[in-house]
């Protein structure tokens, strides 16, 4: 795996694993994203899962909702570390863009991912 920020996707149930799988299938970029589920987790367990997934350097954490246990666990990582950023409302377009722009610092990568994810939400 090349250098650059890692991505951690934290979501309810099987959602994170499904998103990561589909990003890998579409982009061919493997080993960049790590999926974390809140299944069967109390606060301590989800905090531990996210901390473990985000431990290897600069990381952007993608969360499904801007509230709840997944979001809180992600935000707790930012309390002690300035190389972690959080983006909420995770979707495929933002992840697909992220895996091709990992050289950006986490703050810039997170801002770009949020823009790309928002751009993809349209009334068609």
């Amino acid at each position, binding site marked *: 795996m090349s250098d650059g920020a890692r991505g951690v996707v934290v979501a309810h149930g099987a959602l994170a694993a499904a998103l990561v799988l589909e990003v890998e299938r579409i982009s061919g970029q493997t080993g960049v994203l790590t999926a974390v589920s809140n299944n069967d987790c109390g606060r301590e367990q989800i905090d531990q899962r996210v901390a473990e997934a985000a431990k290897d350097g600069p990381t952007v954490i993608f969360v499904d909702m801007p*509230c709840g*246990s997944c979001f*809180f666990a992600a935000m707790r990582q930012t309390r002690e570390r300035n190389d972690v950023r959080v983006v909420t409302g995770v979707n495929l377009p933002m992840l697909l863009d992220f895996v091709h722009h990992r050289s950006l610092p986490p703050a810039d990568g997170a801002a770009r991912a949020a823009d790309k994810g928002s751009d993809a939400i349209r009334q068609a």
Partner: protein
Amino acid sequence: MPIVLYRVDDRLVHGQVVIGWGRSNDVGFFALVDDAVAASDWERELYRMGVPPEVELFFASIADAARQMDAWRRDARNGMVLTADISTMVALAEAAPPVDRVNLGGIHHKPGRTQRLPYIYLTEEEYHILESLAARGTQVTAQDLPTSPPVPLEQLR
């Protein structure tokens, strides 16, 4: 308005609480009773992000909650009291009775606990503490969502 739910859930504020229980009970405020959260500006600010702006979120230590409970019970809005663990809820029930019903909403695995339901793990000691609470007149049931059937404490044995 009454306190519509006294809930033990180690996740405290999360989707099941805010959306599942909160919306269906037209909850106007949550009272989060936790000594550690009450003492941390950072954690309080974090939990505030998890509640819709039209819903108020109070933070209190056990001692503060005991003093505030009457005011919460007299509040014109429906309210929910949340604790992360059984010991805090029992302390609250003793300090500010009556707590007529306690909902076990999420108590997850830790060493020494065994699974009683997919979302409830208890040590034997915790089970007996709940039994004692029930013996003093509090109805104790497990129920993750309003749409799920409540499970009586006896079935968690």
